[in-house]
């Protein structure tokens, strides 16, 4: 997972990439919390919506492995296999943590200060 390469691929400068990625992580962690709550409530629609949101955002940043994990969660949620998607969900959480660590490692500047975009 080379974020420098990804940054170049997306045609963004380092600052921009750092901000986008950090924003993605923020939003994804909110979505993940929503997903966990929905799993506990066996709310398949809630799980699918949260997964869908992560999937779309990940695609925008071309984080394809995260996108495919989210897609798998979404598919299983839609088929009602709540118990089976826990593994994917935990892997997804792990991957997001890894991404966060890598971002801090490769783009250490200005990554705090972005919580949520206020329109």
């Amino acid at each position, binding site marked *: 997972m080379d974020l420098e390469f990804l940054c170049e691929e997306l045609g963004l400068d380092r600052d921009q990439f750092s*901000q986008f990625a950090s924003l993605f992580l923020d939003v994804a962690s909110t979505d993940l919390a929503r997903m966990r709550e929905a799993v506990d409530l066996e709310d398949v629609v809630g799980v699918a919506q949260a997964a869908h*949101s992560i999937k*779309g955002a990940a*695609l925008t940043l071309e984080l394809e492995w995260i996108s495919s994990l989210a*897609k798998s969660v*979404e*598919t299983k949620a839609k088929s009602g296999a709540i118990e089976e998607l826990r593994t994917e969900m935990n892997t997804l959480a792990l991957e997001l943590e890894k991404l966060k660590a890598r971002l801090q490692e490769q783009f250490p500047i200005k990554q705090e200060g972005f919580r949520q975009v206020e*329109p």
Partner: protein
Amino acid sequence: MKTVLVVDNQPLILRFMKELIERRGHRALLAGSGLEALEVLQEVKPDLVFLDLVMPNIDGQKLCRILRSDHRLRETRVVILSAIASEEVPSLDSLGADLCIAKGPIPEMTLHVEAVLEDRVPWDTHPPLVMGADTIQPREITRELLATRRHLELILEHMSEGILELNTQGRIVFANPSAAQILGVPELNLLGKRVTELLSVQQAENLQSLLEEAFCKKEPLRPRAPLEVRARRLEVECLPFGANGSGAILILSDVTPVHRTAELLQHTLDKAPLPAFMIDTQHRVTLWNRAMEMLTGVSRDQVLGKPADSSIFYPGNKRPLLVDLVLDMDMEAVARFYGSGTISVHPVFPEAWEGTGNFLLEGKPRTLHFMAARITDAEGKLLGAMETVEDVTDREELQRHLQHAQKMQAVGTLAAGMAHEFNNILAAIQGYAQLVGFNTPPEDPNAEYLKEIEASCQRAAGLIRKMLAFSRMDQSEKLPVKLNQVVEGVGQMLRQTLSPKIRINLELEPGLPFVSGEYARLEQVVLNLCLNSKDALLEEGGEIILRTSHCFLEESFCRSHPWAKPGSYVKLEVQDNGTGIDPEVLDRIFEPFFTTKEPGKGTGLGLTIAYSIVKSHSGYILAESPSPSGRGSRFTVFLPVLPEQEEKPHERGAESRELPRGKGERILLVDDEPQLLEIGKKMLVSYNYRVDTALDGSEGLAIYARALQQGDPYLLVILDVAMPVMDGKEFMSRVLEMDPGARVLVSTGAALKQETTGGAFQGAVGVLEKPFELELLLRSVRQALEVGLEHPGL
């Protein structure tokens, strides 16, 4: 510089777009939802709008339609920025969007957005151009999501209930077609509006507090009463949702038709004169009609929606009503609260229970008949129960009057029959005593005893006449009478005979109109009433007031007093300040032989006679105790005023005491009682008449015919009415056939006297009352003979 609005719920996209737009020197406005976008659009007119299709609250499709329906924004370009755009192409055109960019990785999106910002795109293609669709693989899951979404949308579009989704500020972010139709506002105009704007101030406040309560409790709630919007009645269910009550769904049901039916039912029942009310399965009053309001004095506003208040019928007593017990089918409680035998199954409707009882309504004692039944729908589901409460006080009163009248009539008939028998026996005793008297010189000591026998017979006959008085079969001629004269006479007599401790006070209204009546009988009424009052006075004495007045009984009075007929009456009141009359005695006071006096002290006929005399004068008599003064009792007599006011005072004792004698005229007596024939013959012979007798009609007819042939006809026939072989009626017609000039005097016992008027006896010259009393017999015979002479053709 362009003003660009970006609407997306994905913060990453917003951030990306903001950077991109501002880097190109334009002004970026961001909105996280359709609703936020509407707020921004109220302030600003952007040149360009990028919007996502899938968003919470108001989604992109709706927002797009709203934008396109806003004339102010006709210059604004609308670009859809969506991951699912590739699959939505056919519908994009209808949304009114100018262009579509498929969401994808940042580099591609950057290219497309820059092209749009710099107007390097063909704006007006139909359908709109989709940029970047080729880079996107249609994804399985998106299709699935869309399928689910369409499925739900289909349901929402076609359900009859209106669905409104509100955000925390109470603004509408979703409305289905039914909601738009029910509220009468196009869907696009509903979006972004506060739901309270559609309601009156009061209803808006109610709904607002309901919403707050629902958010707070996090459970579905309904307003107590339906909302009223544009003359429609809407039932609303409020469902809060979201973890911290972030929004609410309102489900609207148009219950106008149901309400119209309910109103129709209410109006129909309101017009019904029978008081009725209904309760639902929770025992709450759902209907309370006008008649019920009038009966109880309790308005429907006081009771609707609450459990029926038992204190209306049972002051100070909290207990279930019959309707409550019937609703629960709690028959054990019915027996406990009403006692056994007071409630029964309705004879025609076995599902209904009924009973009658005495109640105090608004301080007045009333007899109420109540009937309660469960209400079920066609499937037998319990909907509630209803009760009717009928005021039968007047009907019960009428029933009592009727029973009383029937009893009096039965006793009267019995008395009349007995009186007839006694009359015949008395006639014999009196007649023989008189005959012995003729043959006894005045100086003989037996003459004294004979006079005593005759006097006793007179008294006995008087008693029989009294009995007949209340059988009403004895109707003598009535003349105009001044009631004040009668009262004055009785008053004077009472002052002379009663103890001086008893004050007799007369309060007579001067110039009273005449009543039609018999002086002596009216005297008896006054006397009997006074004697009754006297007996009620204590030993230390008291006061009897005799009061007369002229009054008019109005229609309204007669409605509440079913025995009375409207008209002009002379009123007599006899009031005392004595011990009064117990209610149970008051009920029976006019019954024959009913007395509270010791045996031997009263006959129990005094008030009965007064009652029947008043009745025979077409009048009314009332007894009240205590009297309006609070003590004793009061009897009130109403006698109808004589229509024509000719003064024909009842002359009494003016006729000559000398008995008229015959001139040897020939008379035929026809009667089946040999004793009567004998007495009659002897009386008439003694006064110079020639008399023959016959024991039945056919014998009499033969004798009459023979005398006619012989040229020495009978100038008068005294004819009994009831006889075996040939009765009076037949004899009458036959004799008139034979001799149209025949004079017949009909003789009868008082009991049958009314049979002699009219009909077969129309040709009679007069009616003679049995037993034959010498003076009356001689005067009647004389009169009959003279009438015949004056009018030979009769």
